[in-house]
């Protein structure tokens, strides 16, 4: 059992020495009925902690620097931060892509069009869709699944900087013709005949929802 003052001082010392400190070892050393007190002190201290001073060596190895590299990668992409943010959100939800696609298909009432949704979501995650083309119902459904607001998803999808001169393969396919782009591994639903009206309607709705085509023309 260690006094709260001593533990808190040790925490602050480690934070100031290393630039961060893991509260858990300190909390685990506190008497059980003092943990809330220590945790409150640590939480308030961290929220009030002053800005770290400039340190080039530390910056070079920081999450902030890695974040800049991530932003460098997506600059000019039509889907803004989606290629980085959507996998993070999916990982947070511990959801495989196919699970998410199933739920998204159901949420959008596109039964029978899971392969189309999978292809569209693949484009979205790989930065191939223009975020402004993705319609609100998609973002609202994704928000419910991933635990984010549609507004946040929209703002994450905003393009950074001027558009890239060369569009990615997925984008080129998606915007290059009238047919719906599908990854090579995603076959058209085998049971659907080429001119199946139900299938054509599903393709039209997926195109409208994810690529904004035909939106407002109904």
């Amino acid at each position, binding site marked *: 059992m260690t006094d709260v003052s001593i533990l808190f001082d040790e925490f602050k010392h480690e934070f100031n020495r290393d630039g961060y400190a893991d509260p858990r070892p300190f909390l685990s050393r506190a008497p059980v009925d003092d943990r809330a007190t220590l945790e409150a*002190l640590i939480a308030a201290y961290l*929220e009030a902690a002053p800005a770290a001073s400039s340190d080039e060596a530390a910056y070079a190895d920081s999450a902030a620097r890695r974040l800049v590299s991530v932003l460098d990668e997506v600059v000019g992409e039509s889907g803004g931060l989606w290629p980085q943010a959507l996998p993070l959100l999916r990982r947070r939800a511990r959801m495989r892509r196919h699970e998410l696609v199933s739920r998204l298909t159901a949420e959008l009432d596109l039964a029978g069009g899971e392969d189309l949704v999978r292809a569209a979501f693949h484009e979205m995650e790989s930065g191939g869709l223009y975020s402004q083309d993705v319609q609100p119902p998609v973002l609202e459904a994704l928000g419910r699944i991933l635990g984010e607001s549609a507004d946040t998803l929209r703002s994450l999808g905003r393009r950074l900087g001027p558009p890239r001169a060369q569009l990615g393969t997925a984008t080129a396919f998606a915007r290059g013709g009238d047919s719906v782009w599908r990854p090579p591994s995603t076959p058209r639903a085998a049971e659907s005949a080429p001119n199946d009206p139900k299938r054509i309607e599903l393709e039209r709705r997926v195109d409208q929802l994810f690529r904004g085509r035909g939106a407002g023309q109904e």
Partner: protein
Amino acid sequence: MGDLSRLSDGALLAHLRKLVADGRDSEARDAFGRLFFRYEGALRSRALGKLPADDVDDVLQLIGLKFWAKACSTREIGSVKAYLHGIARNVIADQADAVNKRRKHNALLPSEHVGVNDSVGDDSGELDPGYEQVESRLTASGAGLIIRHVRAKLNPLHARVIDLCELGDCTPDATVDLIRAEGGEITRDNVYQIRSRFHVELKKALHSAGFDCGVGS
């Protein structure tokens, strides 16, 4: 613009926004990195206190991406520090919620299935159960409010001790020196006593607000 480290948070944010408006994107991203770095340690510590270590880098990245989206917008940001901590509070809470769901899910799975769903990484981490019970309810802002409330009841000398030694980074000796230099009378023992009393009052306030483990208290 020369040394960005000389700029205040607000000035650096304004500089960043000007760079974005001028189309100097690479410089804007560098300015953003410098700004985020200022609070990375505090954010990492907060995340480490609530989440499995394996989740922390993802969380920092998500906080950063969300902050970037806002930093590049026209949204008014009065205090960068408060704004970043606000984003962090929500992102960490959402992640902690996801971790708890994952734990419950794994606990419900037959043992042969535990770990099968690992394509996205599934380390639930191990938190002390008593701590987890506290941290699931006590937010940093809630803690700050309660601490301010308890501090407000102190006399000026005691409040000064708490500001310097408890919420600040002064050692007890430095606290004594500073207060004496300001004309106050205090000893090292007084500092310890004032801090101990503050902890007792804080504990009572936390208990009243429902923030305690309820074990052994």
